[in-house]
């Protein structure tokens, strides 16, 4: 059987000897392939260079030429206890993105400091990044102790200085170990030259790390990665797939999808060439089927009903920036958090720090390469997430600029946005809602469509109301259950006791009436006319889990406004057959209108 395996990253300032340490670990544990040491020594002879253990790792021609590590390498080695994947991360500031890529995979870290040079800016920057990356098991190696004559005082001074810095970022190293990677002291074996030191060797310290169990005890988090239908391959299962990031799931459990607020029940756990397990815990890539068929998308997080993730459009985060182009307020980026992707902008910058000394900048108004920042991000649509302190994997994200990841961060707080209350009400209502024996699928089957809402938006006089009427007529004549909900009718009846200027309550009651009609299985058509629903996004939040399809009426020059699904530019006076056909075709395309109607 495979041994236990652990990923350990080696980080630290450039030239402090990371690759040398890893090379020495390989050589001293007898892990090197036969002939490898001799081959590299031979290459050095040919090229007239002095052999270094680092050459065993720095495989690229350019790396050996310049004598620095450019990209993180994975090295495999084995102790009696377990197998290791050692990630040798570059220490040069130019390659910080490679250090982060390497370190993000690790479960534990060895931070290296040159005894001769002492604590340098990347000693601190790497320490800070390890804390943001969530790596808690750390050993500090004070290397090149041979260059300071194995002097205990030098070691103690570095320990004192670095320990103080690490304490500021909540890192408490397991051990500080004096080593000489070049001479082999305290790497794999003890040494008389360091007789004053009674701690472990690096190898012992690394074997002392503990393997973190996956987070099966936390609340369930399954970010939806995809929904598979292989109908054309003769497989009619509809399988929701994703990795369980936290918690445990079992068939029969009721589950909530956020941010859509849809509720269903786990029917089966699917497996190929294996028996389906009775439960699945964190760390597993799974496929499940649901009892009630609901439309869900990639990016939603599945949880149990009463322990859902946060949902908002605003989150406060600690962010590190790796791209040459600074992160600027006002500019739009892509945020990727587990499987969710959405547009994001900076809402507010609290502080920008220089990670090499933790000094806050008083003048910067943008996040530059290698800066770290404490800021609030605003997403275009609500997303589901957790605070990193509560569930780590669903509390971290990356920012993509153009085609590449430009930065990353962890969520520290939820910042309440305007719709927070509405969202919470809608979630509770959906969980507690009482239903009869007719399922939404049965209603959809008889009506020829699932319940959903079509909202017509656009400036006054663009023909919203006329198109709404025409659409209702066309659908009802075809046998569908369409209903034109005019906001005025709600104002006249349900809102008769409300003050005419209590806009917020008017909007809320409109949304609740729409929700009832949707629950009855209707295709509800409405416009933003009567009660000035400039904010139809609030209604969209409120009618969840039902979907809103937004048709914007206006000239091409206006483009597609935020939140709209399609744009039409009709003649306000009609006829509207063309527009009605365009809308129904699009509804059909999106599965909002099924082919078969009675």
């Amino acid at each position, binding site marked *: 059987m*495979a041994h236990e395996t652990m990923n350990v990253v080696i980080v630290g300032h450039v030239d402090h000897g990371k690759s040398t340490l890893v090379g020495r670990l390989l050589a001293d544990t007898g892990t090197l392939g036969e002939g490898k040491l001799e081959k590299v020594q031979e290459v050095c002879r040919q090229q007239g260079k002095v052999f270094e253990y680092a050459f065993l790792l720095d495989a690229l021609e350019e790396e050996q030429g310049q004598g620095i590590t450019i990209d993180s390498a994975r090295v495999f080695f084995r102790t009696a206890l377990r197998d290791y994947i050692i990630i040798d991360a570059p220490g040069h500031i130019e390659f910080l993105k490679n250090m982060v890529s390497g370190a993000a995979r690790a479960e534990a870290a060895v931070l290296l400091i040159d005894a001769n040079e002492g604590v340098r800016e990347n000693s601190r920057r790497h320490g800070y990044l390890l804390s943001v990356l969530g790596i808690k098991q750390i050993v500090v190696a004070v290397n090149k102790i041979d260059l300071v004559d194995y002097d205990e005082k030098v070691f103690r001074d570095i320990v004192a200085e670095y320990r103080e810095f690490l304490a500021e970022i909540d890192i408490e190293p397991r051990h500080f170990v004096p080593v000489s990677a070049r001479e082999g002291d305290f790497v794999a074996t003890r040494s008389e030259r360091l007789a004053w030191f009674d701690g472990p060797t690096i190898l012992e310290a690394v074997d002392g790390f503990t393997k973190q169990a996956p987070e099966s005890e936390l609340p369930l988090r399954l970010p939806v990665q995809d929904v598979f239908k292989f109908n054309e391959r003769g497989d009619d299962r509809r399988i929701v797939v994703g990795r369980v990031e936290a918690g445990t799931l079992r068939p029969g459990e009721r589950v909530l999808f956020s941010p859509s607020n849809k509720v269903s029940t786990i029917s089966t756990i*699917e497996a190929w060439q294996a028996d389906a397990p009775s439960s699945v815990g964190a760390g597993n890539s799974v496929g499940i089927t649901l009892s009630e068929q609901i439309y869900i998308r990639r990016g939603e997080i599945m949880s149990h009903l009463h322990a859902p993730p946060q949902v908002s459009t605003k989150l406060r985060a600690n962010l590190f920036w790796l791209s040459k182009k600074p992160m600027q307020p006002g500019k739009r980026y892509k945020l990727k958090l587990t499987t969710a992707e959405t547009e994001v902008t900076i809402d507010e910058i609290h502080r920008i720090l220089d990670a090499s000394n933790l000094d806050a900048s008083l003048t910067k108004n943008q996040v530059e390469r290698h800066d770290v920042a404490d800021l609030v991000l605003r997403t275009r649509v609500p997303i589901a997430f957790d605070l990193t302190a509560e569930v780590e994997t669903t509390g971290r994200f990356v920012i993509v600029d153009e085609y590449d990841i430009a930065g990353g961060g962890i969520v520290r707080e939820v910042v309440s946005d305007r719709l927070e209350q509405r969202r919470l009400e809608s979630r509770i209502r959906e969980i507690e809602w009482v239903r009869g024996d007719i399922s939404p699928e049965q209603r959809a089957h008889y009506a020829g469509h699932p319940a959903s809402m079509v909202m017509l938006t656009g400036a006054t006089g663009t023909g919203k109301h006329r198109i709404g009427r025409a659409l209702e007529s066309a659908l009802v004549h075809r046998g569908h259950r369409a209903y034109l909900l005019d906001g005025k009718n709600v104002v006249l009846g349900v809102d008769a006791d409300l003050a005419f200027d209590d806009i917020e309550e008017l909007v809320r009651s409109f949304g609740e009436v729409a929700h009832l009609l949707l629950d009855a299985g209707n295709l509800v058509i409405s416009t933003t006319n009567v009660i000035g629903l400039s904010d139809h996004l609030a209604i969209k939040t409120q009618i969840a889990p039902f979907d809103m399809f937004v048709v914007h009426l206006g000239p091409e020059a206006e483009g597609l406004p935020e939140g709209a699904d399609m744009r039409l530019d009709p003649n306000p006076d009609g006829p509207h057959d063309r527009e009605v056909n365009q809308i129904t075709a699009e509804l059909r395309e999106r599965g909002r209108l099924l082919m078969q109607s009675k």
Partner: protein
Amino acid sequence: MSHLDELENQSVYIFREAYKHFKNLCMLWSIGKDSTVMLWLARKAFFGHVPFPLVHIDTSYKIPVMIEYRDKLARQWGLEMVVGQNRAALAAGMNHTRGRLVCCRALKTDALINTLSGAWPRKRMGPDGEYREELDGEAFTGVIVGARADEEGSRAKERYFSPRDHNSDWDVSDQPPELWNQFKTDFAPGTHVRIHPLLDWTEINIWEYIEKENIPIIDLYFDKGSGKRYRSIGCETCTGMIESPARNPAEIITELRLTNIPERAGRAQDQEDTYAMEKLRREGYM
């Protein structure tokens, strides 16, 4: 969770990310143990289906049973095979005696690049199990490859999702960041992304998984009485057998735990130049 389970779960996750993000996705199948394990993992990820074509580059010098095994499994498992070849170079008599790197470049790298881009005609297996000529095929923008980090130095520096520019070149000294399972899934027109689901697997892990899952691997890897077997397979002309009596995965695992000889020691092209593999990989070699 065992280490093999960790590896399987990560590979499955990578497969599903690739399938979600790349419309023109394919997987390279060299018929060897690694890419056959990868094929098995794809079937795990997609519940028995392989919802993208498998590309094989046939240098014409492959050990003949490899081609038989390929087509038999493809028909049995309903795989969509796409086969590419550098027909012009072969017509001009290209072979390893003209220099192994020259030969690899022509018959593997060039054939691969032009098969993936659709520039050269390729053969595609239809649902009836027969190959037909395909002209003007679409370019693949996502290419799943079975590279492992422990194979040789330059592969240890790979990302799970690794961009290739419009010349298929790998800019190894300026790779984009990759963290927390967030991969490079956005790419400029004309470029493509290589996807590596097996990056964290070692040679031993591959055999442990073959044994655990009982994967029908090609039998060239096993000693059938001569006391010799292949440890790595490729062109007949450039791949040597090793002295080994191992007849099954379990015996191979035992043997690997004791050996210090690198896996690709039998692959002649690696020994041509210190940086041979890095050079080939930068240019688009798999």
